[in-house]
């Protein structure tokens, strides 16, 4: 519905992804195996869900950015683990608790950004530090609670299809992700909700004059981002069974979600972009990490490569805008 300029950006993102996959399979011939692809998709899911939150925040405009996603993810993990404590019976409460926690925390970001006019960059980063500090206080460094069997099944397990002579295993998160992508795309394209999001990102003032309570809407968007990142944390809990506070990993989600959005062709000015692009971006990043790992690079070297890739992409994307 929203006529996105440069509609081929999603296509570009996927082309980049396929290019990377081809590169990967050249370096490591076993790369293109079904198993490997599924593994990558599975790992990409968690980033992809976080990137969804980042996507809506960026689309909402006014230089929207959510640097606290890593914190919300951690909150999701710990709240989920605490409520579940290994017991499937508490799955539904855990789900709601996680969403609620992420949403409320996100609202604080939204309030600061929308009503107090604090730049999203610094508001969300500062809040991230607070959240991580809060988690430290609450957990006192100990690990409390753990995932439940069903959640672990979802996070780690696969659904099995019997095909011909063998069986293929698709990790549960993959169909879950596909459903989420479908729902999100529908909402963005065909509902007033999606159209309003694009509207406030495109021209906040005009949107207000046309009757939208933009401040309130934007605040809610940040809440949604928090909820999505927390939800990803819940799934991640299913993946790793125990919550943990690894700082590096969380900072990684922050940067990675932003890069995924960038690759997906979503402009940081807001008002345009499709989640499908960020999906491609997420998979791209995880694939890149995987390739670098198989090349047995040290942490530092991997970081350098990621940075160079990012810079090259940035230069390429900026140039395109100039030429247009």
């Amino acid at each position, binding site marked *: 519905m929203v006529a996105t300029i440069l509609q081929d950006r999603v296509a570009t993102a996927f082309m980049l992804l396929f290019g990377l996959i081809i590169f990967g399979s050249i370096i490591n011939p076993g790369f293109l195996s079904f198993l490997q692809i599924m593994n990558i998709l599975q790992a990409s899911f968690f980033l992809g869900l976080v990137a969804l939150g980042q996507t809506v925040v960026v689309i909402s405009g006014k230089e929207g950015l959510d640097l606290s996603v890593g914190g919300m993810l951690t909150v999701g993990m710990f709240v989920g683990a605490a409520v579940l404590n290994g017991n499937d019976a508490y799955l539904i409460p855990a789900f709601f608790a996680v969403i609620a926690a992420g949403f409320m925390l996100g609202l604080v970001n939204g309030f600061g950004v929308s009503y107090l006019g604090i730049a999203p960059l*610094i508001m969300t980063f500062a809040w991230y530090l607070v959240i991580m*500090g809060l988690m430290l206080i609450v957990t006192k460094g100990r690990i409390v609670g753990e995932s439940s069997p069903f959640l672990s099944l979802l996070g780690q397990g696969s659904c099995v299809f019997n095909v011909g002579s063998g069986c293929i295993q698709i990790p549960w998160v993959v169909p879950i992700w596909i459903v989420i992508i479908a729902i999100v795309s529908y909402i963005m394209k065909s509902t007033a909700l999606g159209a309003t999001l694009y509207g406030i990102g495109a021209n906040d003032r005009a949107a207000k004059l046309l009757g939208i309570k933009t401040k309130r809407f934007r605040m809610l968007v940040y809440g949604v981002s928090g909820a999505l990142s927390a939800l990803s944390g819940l799934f991640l809990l299913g993946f790793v069974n125990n919550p943990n506070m690894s700082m590096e990993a969380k900072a990684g989600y922050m*940067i990675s979600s932003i890069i995924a959005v960038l690759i997906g062709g979503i402009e940081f000015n807001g008002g345009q972009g499709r989640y499908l692009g960020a999906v491609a971006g997420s998979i791209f990043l995880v694939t890149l990490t995987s390739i670098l790992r198989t090349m047995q690079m*040290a942490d530092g070297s*991997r*970081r350098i490569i990621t940075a160079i890739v*990012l*810079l090259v992409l940035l230069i390429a994307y900026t140039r395109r805008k100039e030429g247009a």
Partner: protein
Amino acid sequence: MSQMSENKGGVLKKLATRLIRDPAFPGLLVLIVLLALNFYFQNRFFSYRILRSNFMAYTPLILAAMAQAIIIISGSVDFSIGYALSLFTCLTAYLMTDTNVFAIILLGSVVIFLGSGVMNGFFVGKLKMSPLITTFATMTLFWGIAQTIMPMAGGYVPRFFYKTYRIQVLGFLPFPAVILFIAIVIWSIFRRTSFGRHIYAVGSNEDGAYSSGINVSRIRFMAHVIASIFIAMAGVCLLMSMASGDFRVGQEYALNSVAAVVIGGIALKGGKGSIAGAIVGALILGLINNIIFYAKVSAFYQGFAKGMVIVVALFFGGIPQWLKSLKA
């Protein structure tokens, strides 16, 4: 006779009004309150030893904040300052021996100048890339290089070098204070050139600056380059203070340098504020850290407390805007 005293009163009044109107003024008040609080928690706060150790600890942040301020005033932002510092300390601590101290310092400074100043400046100024994401990328780059050079904290810094950080110049001035003073002098010189005015113009109204014949991309470029001077100075102070290289130091400085700038009354979109604000902001952050430490806040709470402080400061900064919008 009466005219003379009238003029005097007029000048004083003018100065007072200018002081109050300066966006850094609320920060100054907060600073005074914090000094008092610090004194409360730590009686010997105003003793020479304590003051000196505070200077040693905060000078890198103050210099980093000054660098960040220059960049932000020009309408850009630099997230990579922290890890540029990491890179500096790792690189220099790795290469340093007793004999090549100054050469290595020079090398490190050139790396900072080229990497942080020229590279960021080129991307943001000449290629017109988005400062935020670009400096995120360069931050990752510096991080990676620093981590590669020195995966574990260590390195070597000669004794005489880091001892210098602790000496007293002219008998009473802490060495870092002297560095700071030099930095302020350097900035004052720049401030009086057309560059000094033009970064405000570019940050405040880029189109207007261009229409006035200002080379906007060059000013943006120069802002990063000149800021890198202060980053290099911060790196030197940090190295002297830590006496080793550790790639993880950067994390804090990224946010803290921006927070210091914001607390000091400099608007994130550019065009407003003064370096004094950055200094005040950095001092405030430093003093708060001090209070948290001396108020015997448990280690678990410290991270939370530091973050909360910044958030509260931001909220306070945002309240005038909120009240204004309510009245609209």
